[in-house]
């Protein structure tokens, strides 16, 4: 009896130890979010002035803002989404509606999953090779296309998942009314899966709005106000990269404030996407 009790106690001790480690692991995971957000607020808030949104990036040692970078980021993100999202939705539609069990869909699914996690810097090199090197100059277009390449796999994945969840009876009912296939897809299944598809697009926007690596060799950077897509274009991440590594205090301040803006924009997009899914699927 004494032996079995001591064994029981040893098992309980080991369990308590393991459970404590699991608690510690969760604490370890959560603390970084708190620390990073706190640092961003602490270092970024002092630089949050109106001039930030009305002036362009300054030369070192003078006053300025991030207007050109913010505008450049918005332009590149919007263009990247506008180019990438329709392609992604169409490809997802093919896989869920037309070729659900076809060999091609299986291959595309596999390739898409690879693209989804492929290093974004490699995508930057790819666009450099096909758009920057042949044309001989960096451009906003190249930046937008490289972001579009990152948007496509995210949207393909969510679109396919969401369309596959639409019950087959809805399609059958529509087909029984004599509706052509393309109209069934566009006005029945798209409508049923709308929240999910929009969520996928939002997540893709969240992903590209903070991307830096693919922009370094495509859109490059621009110290001045420019909306010409055939020229290098500024973006918040590229400016943060340049300014954070500079030795000038006012540049570093701008980098922190830019980091604060971008992080909160991305987190709002992420949380918004989640709320959207939740409000449609209460379970």
């Amino acid at each position, binding site marked *: 009896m004494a032996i079995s009790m001591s064994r029981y106690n040893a098992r309980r001790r080991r369990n308590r130890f393991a459970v404590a480690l699991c608690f510690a692991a*969760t604490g370890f995971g959560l603390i970084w979010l708190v620390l990073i957000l706190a640092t961003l607020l602490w270092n970024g808030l002092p630089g949050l002035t109106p001039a930030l949104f009305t002036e362009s990036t300054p030369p070192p040692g003078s006053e300025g803002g991030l207007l050109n970078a913010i505008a450049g980021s918005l332009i590149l993100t919007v263009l990247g989404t506008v180019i990438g999202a329709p392609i992604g939705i169409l490809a997802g539609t093919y896989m869920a509606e037309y070729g659900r069990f076809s060999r091609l869909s299986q291959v595309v699914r596999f390739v898409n999953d690879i693209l989804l996690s492929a290093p*974004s810097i490699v995508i930057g*090199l790819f666009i450099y090779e096909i758009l920057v090197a042949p044309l001989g100059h960096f451009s906003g277009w190249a930046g937008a296309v490289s972001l579009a390449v990152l948007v496509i796999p995210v949207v393909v994945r969510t679109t396919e998942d969401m369309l596959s969840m639409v019950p087959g009876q809805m399609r059958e009912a529509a087909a029984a009314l004599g509706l052509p296939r*393309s109209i069934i897809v566009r006005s029945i299944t798209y409508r049923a899966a709308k929240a999910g598809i929009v969520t996928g697009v939002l997540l893709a926007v969240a992903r590209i709005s903070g991307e830096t690596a693919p922009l370094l060799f495509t859109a490059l950077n621009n110290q001045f106000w420019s909306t010409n897509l055939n020229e290098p274009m500024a973006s918040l991440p590229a400016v943060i990269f340049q300014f954070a590594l500079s030795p000038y205090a006012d540049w570093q301040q701008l980098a922190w404030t830019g980091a604060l803006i971008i992080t909160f924009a991305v987190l709002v997009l992420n949380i918004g996407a989640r709320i959207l899914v939740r409000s449609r699927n209460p379970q």
Partner: protein
Amino acid sequence: MPRARSVSREERLAIRLRGFRLGDRVFHSLTFLAAILVLALLSGVIVSLVQGSLPALHAFGLNFIVTEVWNPVGDRFGALAAIVGTLVTSAIAMLIGVPVSIGIAIFLTELCPMWLRRPIAIAIELLAGIPSIIYGIWGLFVLAPFLQRTLEPWLIALFSPIPGLNLLFAGPPFGVGVFTAGLILAIMVLPFITAVTRDVFSSVPPVLKEAAYGLGCTTWEVSRQVVLPYTRVGVTGGIMLGLGRALGETMAVTFVIGNAHRLSASVLAPGTTISATIANEFNEAVGDLYTSSLIALGLILFVITFIVLALARYMLMRMERRAGA
């Protein structure tokens, strides 16, 4: 007259039906083209990287992979330091990240009260949403100085009397270096591994767990001897997915690794990775051979991550098939 009208009505109907058929065909081919485009993207990436790296591969051959020297002035390039740096930082990230992720997944599926599960899961997932450059700037200005003052001197002092390990943790503490990069990567891959692990953990049939609890198993014993063996393939897939992310991560590593093209035994010394080298040097690269060598680095990175990710997908697919059966 009425006869003529009825013909034209039929005709109109026929035109509409033909329009439907045309619309159907156009929409079908559009979606098909988009699906093909996804395939074309991947092939395009491979072809353009191979083409871009041909000059470097011609000049250095396979020695490119096993040479450490990286000398832009003398036009001599070797990828060894960057490849080793990539593998070592990812290994450190996995050593720290995997146990923590599994711990969090056990916490979320077995220990956490129901009402807290969703908020904590979302908080962990938000870590994945924070852009990589933010990890970089935070790592450089907050984490690296902190490690330089606290953990690194402690590690150096702790391991200095132990032969072998004292080389691995040789000083001085720089703050920036391979270890710091590995730690940042561990934080960044946490949410990816946790998400997959949690999903496969909750795919374990409750009957199995209840049976084990019914025999008097503790929570840890159930997790260790029922949940983990059942989900081994899926968990491995999640780990590989995280590894794929860690290998290719660029901006965060670029900030904190120190960018030194040399091999050193100590993980506290500055180093470099493939992605950090490309990010730092590509725009300053002059000469075809330099540019081509950097693209060849990109090709190597792509091949490594491709293999890792393909294995991850294969394992997760096996897991899904079993869950479906």
